[in-house]
């Protein structure tokens, strides 16, 4: 590949990524050359500007045709556009929360902002990549940024523990994923997903099919780490609890979205196009396994959340439950709604979860703990915040009138429009939802029924307050008019 070929590519496609990358570089360079005494807080806004700029460019690129560069290893298709919107919106909203983090706790401010952008960059690359290499590099860029961010509260023991657990578990999961991918490469001899489809369609050796099935399961296991689903969910509560709250929000929203991007991208191009046994694709053949994992994830997440008295841990387990709901949609590959369901669920989840974390962050700062008791009497102290939290929790519980309900409805519908309606899985999902009422409404009971110890009002950084308002507005808006996008 010479310079001429390189120049002939339409680099505009990558402009959103390049802007985010530019932002990251700019922040770290400025951090190096600026005098020690100068405040670093404004660098944060530079990062926000980069995300906003990337978002704007992406929206301008939306009408463009599907096009790929670098030998189709980077493509901007409908899928990439839709998911990048999610990633950028989620990253931007949660980025606003970082301003709320106490300076005394997260000391390396500019590193924080840089890592945020590089993590986002990795996720964005994943949504555009059409080959195993870029997929994996994107995944690692996101993961490594997240590992460091989880440990940014340097003086906090729990934060250190979180980073440690995250990096070890994450390393193992990555290795497993890579191991599965190597099977794919071994069978097809190519890393390009497009070429792989062609190879797999003409696959005849049944021994290869077995290996392919194995690689499916291995990759899926590895990726269940990223989306915080069973069987690889144990790290979630500890890491979520220890990491700075804004990072936890990042993990639960951006990182999870990225995980689903990877799963859909890989499985829907590769495994849906292999016709094995009477024309059935491998993905459909594997459907029962996914369904079982979905059921396990929902049950484990929601039942364990019942016992939690620390709201951060509770949200961690609830996020496992939510991953399970989305896997229900993923387990119905023949449904025309599958793709919609996952996308819309991630959108709804973005708003409701980011909003809940915004409030949690402020409460944690004020009372020094994320225990349920910190929420006691919140309605007396800050009635508006309590009501907003109420709306977000209703959405997480999937009560009508909120985006969470519409998202669950779409998933249920996709389960029933699958070729074989998945009645049992849908029933488990609803049973899990009713279980989740208990812990979500428990927060309600604390906020509205109980007497609290603290008397002072909550204080929000304007940026965090803005994020909270946008999140609540989005939760209601998409709950009433899910169709506006």
């Amino acid at each position: 590949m010479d310079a001429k070929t390189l120049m002939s590519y339409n680099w505009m496609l990558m402009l959103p990524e390049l802007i985010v990358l530019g932002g990251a570089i700019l922040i770290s360079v400025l951090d190096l050359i600026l005098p020690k005494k100068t405040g670093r807080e404004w660098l944060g806004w530079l990062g926000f500007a980069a995300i906003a700029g990337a978002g704007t460019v992406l929206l301008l690129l939306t009408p463009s045709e599907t096009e790929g560069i670098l030998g189709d290893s980077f493509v901007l298709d409908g899928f990439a556009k839709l998911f990048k919107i999610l990633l950028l919106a989620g990253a931007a909203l949660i980025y606003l929360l970082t301003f709320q983090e106490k300076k005394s706790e997260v000391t390396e401010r500019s590193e924080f902002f840089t890592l945020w952008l590089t993590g986002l960059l990795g996720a964005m690359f994943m949504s555009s990549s059409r080959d195993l290499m870029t997929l994996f590099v994107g995944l690692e860029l996101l993961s490594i940024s997240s590992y460091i961010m989880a440990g940014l509260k340097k003086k906090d023991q729990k934060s250190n523990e979180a980073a440690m657990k995250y990096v070890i578990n994450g390393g193992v999961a990555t290795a497993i994923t890579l191991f599965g991918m190597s099977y794919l490469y071994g069978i097809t001899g190519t890393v390009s997903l497009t070429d792989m489809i062609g190879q797999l369609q003409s696959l005849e050796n049944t021994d290869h099919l077995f290996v392919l099935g194995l690689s499916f399961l291995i990759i899926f296991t590895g990726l269940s780490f990223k989306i915080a689903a069973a069987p690889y969910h144990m790290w979630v509560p500890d890491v979520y609890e220890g990491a700075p709250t804004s990072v936890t929000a990042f993990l639960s929203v951006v990182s999870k979205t990225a995980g689903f991007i990877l799963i859909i991208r890989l499985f829907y191009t590769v495994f849906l196009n292999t016709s094995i046994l009477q024309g059935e694709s491998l993905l459909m053949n594997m459907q029962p396994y996914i369904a079982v994992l979905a059921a396990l994830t929902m049950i484990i997440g929601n039942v364990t959340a019942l016992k939690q008295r620390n709201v951060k841990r509770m949200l961690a387990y609830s996020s496992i439950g939510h991953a399970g709901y989305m896997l229900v949609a993923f387990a119905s590959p023949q449904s025309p709604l599958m793709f919609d369901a996952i996308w819309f669920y991630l959108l709804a989840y973005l708003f409701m979860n980011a909003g809940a974390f915004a409030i949690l962050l402020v409460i944690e700062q004020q009372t020094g703990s994320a225990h349920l008791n910190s929420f006691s009497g919140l309605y007396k102290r800050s009635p508006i915040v309590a009501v907003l939290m109420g709306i977000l929790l209703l959405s997480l519980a999937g009560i009508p009138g909120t985006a969470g309900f519409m998202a669950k409805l779409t998933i249920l519908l996709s389960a029933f429009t699958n070729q074989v309606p998945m009645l049992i899985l849908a029933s488990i999902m609803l049973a899990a939802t009713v279980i989740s009422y208990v812990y979500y409404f428990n927060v309600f009971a604390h906020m509205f029924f109980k007497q609290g110890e603290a008397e002072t009002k909550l204080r929000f950084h304007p940026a965090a307050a803005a994020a909270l308002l946008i999140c609540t507005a989005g939760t209601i808006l998409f709950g009433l008019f899910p169709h506006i996008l």
Partner: protein
Amino acid sequence: MNSLILTLLVFSPLAGAALLLFIPKEKERAIKAAGLAATMPALILSGIILIQNAMGAGIERFSVSVPWFKMGNVSLGGEYFFTVNYELGIDGFSLIMMTLAAVLATLSASASSFIRSGWKGYFSLLLILETGMLGVFAAENLILFFIFLELTLVPMFFLIGKWGFAGREKAAWYYLLYNGIGSAILLIVIVYLFGMTGTVNIGKLMDLAGDFPAGVQLGLLLALLVSFGVKLPIVPLHTWMLHVHVQAPPPVVMLHSGVLLKIGAYGLIRIGIGMFPEAFQTLGTAIMILGTVNLLYGAFLALIQTDFKRILAYSSVSHMGIVLIGLGAMNEAGIQGAIFQTVSHGFISALLFLLVGLMAVRFQTTDIRELGGLARKLPKLSGVLLAAGMASLGLPGMSGFISEFMAFMGIFLVQPELGAVAAIGLILTAAYVLRAVLSITFGKEKGAEGSLPDLNWHEAAPAWILLFLIISVGVFPNGLAVPLQPAIETIMKGIGG
């Protein structure tokens, strides 16, 4: 034709709740007045519809249908598979139920004067609850039906948990979990129907649901029976309801026993019989047996209770048995009886719970062993109580008589033996009602010493209005029967009778 009137009717309480937020929370009187006033538009509008309907205006002219949202955008910008409209509409049955909800909401707001604190939150939640109740009866499609149904769930949780009596939080949890499970099962049915037929419109589904295999129909109906059985409640799914009736603040119980329990009956009639008449026929005997069990179980347990609130709670269980008996009979008399009972019990139980609340405020107890001789101290209150008791046991000339008579006529036409067993329930009802009411009003003077105030005007007004409605339905049942007739005919056509 799209008419605004139903939308205004359903959402006017919600708008009222929003306006309440702007009144400073110290202004108690203003909040109470505004809360009461916000229930008025729905009452007036339902009155207007009722009158227009009585004057022969077609009921379709009130309905509205506009596109709402779409699902299933496969090709990202291409075609959609599932569309849901915002559609409200009424028939005679839902109109009556809506009016019942509007009337009881106003009366309950009027009776809420003794709420001690947090009036702003209380009235806002009460108004949200009213929108939910009105919406359930106005909904033309299942998604809207479900949304409004769930809209009643959340305010009830708070109303019970924050303003109830000592065991309020536990009662709130019972309410939430039982009804949550009921709703979840209902949602499965709704999404199944949506997924299979591509529509959630109740009218269209009535035509389409008959095409399902008989086994599927039966399964869906059983699911509906459990789901609405929680709300109704059918024994053994009733335990939550006892907690709620004992622990929730009385004005809320008025609404709960008067309207929310009826949503179960309404759903069974509208969706259960309406969509799966054949399956319902298959289960007819079983449903009648369930109804008999409800009737007898509730009556027996009411007989041994000493707390008046618990007596009334079990009496509600028992009276809902009559609804089931009427429905299970699957003939015109039975269904008429069931629908009549749904409406009539709404008035009677609301009145009784209003009275029990007033007694609780005055005596700090509702134990009938500690109450007695009220007739001398509080003549107005005990007079109304006596009348309400008579209505509850089905004295002729009161609304309860008509509904019991029709429902039992229904069961005697198809299963006379079962009818004979069920009739024991009526005797038990007479026994427990008379025992409770007579020992409170007459007998030895007990309870608090000194003089207590009798009904004041804002307590007396709801009581008199409810009594008036009960007697007028009893004396002139055609006032209800005529608007209900088309709805009953539709159901009968579905059954093929």
